[in-house]
């Protein structure tokens, strides 16, 4: 992806140049705001359903708990999607396929681990030889949804939580904006030093 980074780096120089000019910062943040708002309201999802959670994912996108209300359409093709919802147990034989689909998705992409099996291997944690214990072993997961299977409402709550998280993104990846809603991950530095991560 080397040429991809070149383009992205280009945006970084523009962002730095804008910040140096007097009104530039305003333009950049407003551009970020529009971009994040647009991404938040049209998260097209890639249903990576393998087991029982796939049935709940289908139920969530059908008439009773409509996904389309949040502007997110289930698209079967990884190229057209933004968020991959991993629903169900990922076995060692299935993991390379999931990783391959993840790599095929265009860049501003997020991942939702739906159900205990995707979060941590769930009920299949002990005594199994072929289950990947948690999708975050090979995918960067943004939202974890617990439940076995989680109810469609909690799945849609996950989508709305992801909208909050999307607001932290910025056009130039080197710059992230602090939003208060995000819970610090255990691996994050304690609250005090969060300042200089800007």
């Amino acid at each position: 992806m080397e040429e991809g980074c070149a383009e992205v780096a280009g945006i970084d120089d523009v962002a730095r140049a804008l910040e140096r000019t007097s009104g530039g910062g305003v333009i950049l943040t407003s551009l970020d705001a529009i971009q994040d708002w647009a991404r938040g309201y049209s998260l097209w999802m890639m249903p990576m359903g393998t087991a029982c959670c796939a049935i709940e994912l289908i139920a969530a996108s059908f008439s009773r708990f409509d996904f389309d209300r949040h502007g997110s359409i289930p698209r079967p093709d990884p190229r057209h999607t933004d968020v991959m919802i991993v629903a169900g147990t990922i076995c060692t034989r299935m993991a390379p396929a999931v990783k391959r689909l993840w790599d095929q998705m265009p860049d501003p992409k997020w991942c939702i681990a739906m159900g205990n099996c995707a979060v941590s291997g769930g009920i299949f944690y002990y005594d199994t030889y072929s289950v990947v214990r948690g999708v975050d072993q090979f995918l960067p997961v943004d939202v974890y949804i617990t439940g076995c299977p989680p109810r469609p409402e909690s799945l849609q709550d996950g989508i709305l939580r992801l909208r909050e998280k999307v607001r932290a993104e910025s056009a130039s990846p080197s710059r992230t904006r602090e939003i208060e809603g995000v819970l610090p991950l255990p691996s994050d530095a304690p609250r005090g030093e969060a300042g200089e991560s800007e």
Partner: protein
Amino acid sequence: MSFVWGLLWGLATVLLIAGGAVIGVWWERKVSARIQMRLGPQQIGPAGSLQMIADVPKLLFKEDVVPAGADRRVFMYAPLLVFAPIAMAIAVIPFWAGWAPLDSAVGVLFFLAVPSIGVLGILLSAWSSHNTLSTLGGVRAAAQMVSYEVPRSLAVLSVVVLAGSMRPTEVMGAWQWWWVPLTLLGFVVYFVASIAEMNRGPFDIPEAESELVAGYFADYSGMRWAFFMMAEYGAMIAASLFGAALFLGGFVWLPGLAGLAVYIGLAALGYRDWRRSMAAEALA
């Protein structure tokens, strides 16, 4: 002077297609949701009508993925080759009495011939994305589009024979009310053939999700994929306007716009009865 005029009209066509696409996508998502007892987008704009306002910037900022094995340059310009013919075809449609942006003696022939360049664009995009499933989709789409051009042209020919001229403005001007029973069958054939031309509705085998994941534009992402969508909606608008102008003639002075008006009227009607049904549901 004609260059500036052409530029201006080109811009107007793109805006027309973009506007049509916004209404088209919203209308399609809402109506299909309504048929499937769902609600459809409802969070942006009244009744979700401005959902495209969120979709288009997102697609703009999407990473532009070109697959490794793909033939880079062909892959990048194929969508343009699909979209451009549709935009060109709109230039020939007579908008009001005696005037069309490109008033040429063989306007009808131009309208029927130019979109078939799109077939080349589809084949190029399918072949260049180096993906077996999309190649299958591309070949199917090409076969379907080429085979449905013949009935479509013959259907339009019936009106041309009645009007005695190939110039769209003259055909529309010479329109008589007793032509309708004569060209009714032609209109139905034209309507069905143009649906097949656009790979929509019952003819969407090339992009049927069930086996080929997304047909010939499987490997396109972001704005490049949106070009294919714009081409599809543009083809819809062009076919309906041209059909309205030739077969229905409409009010002699604004057939094209009448088609557009009917289109928007339907949208408004649909919106009003949808609001009423929502209110009814709320009461029940």
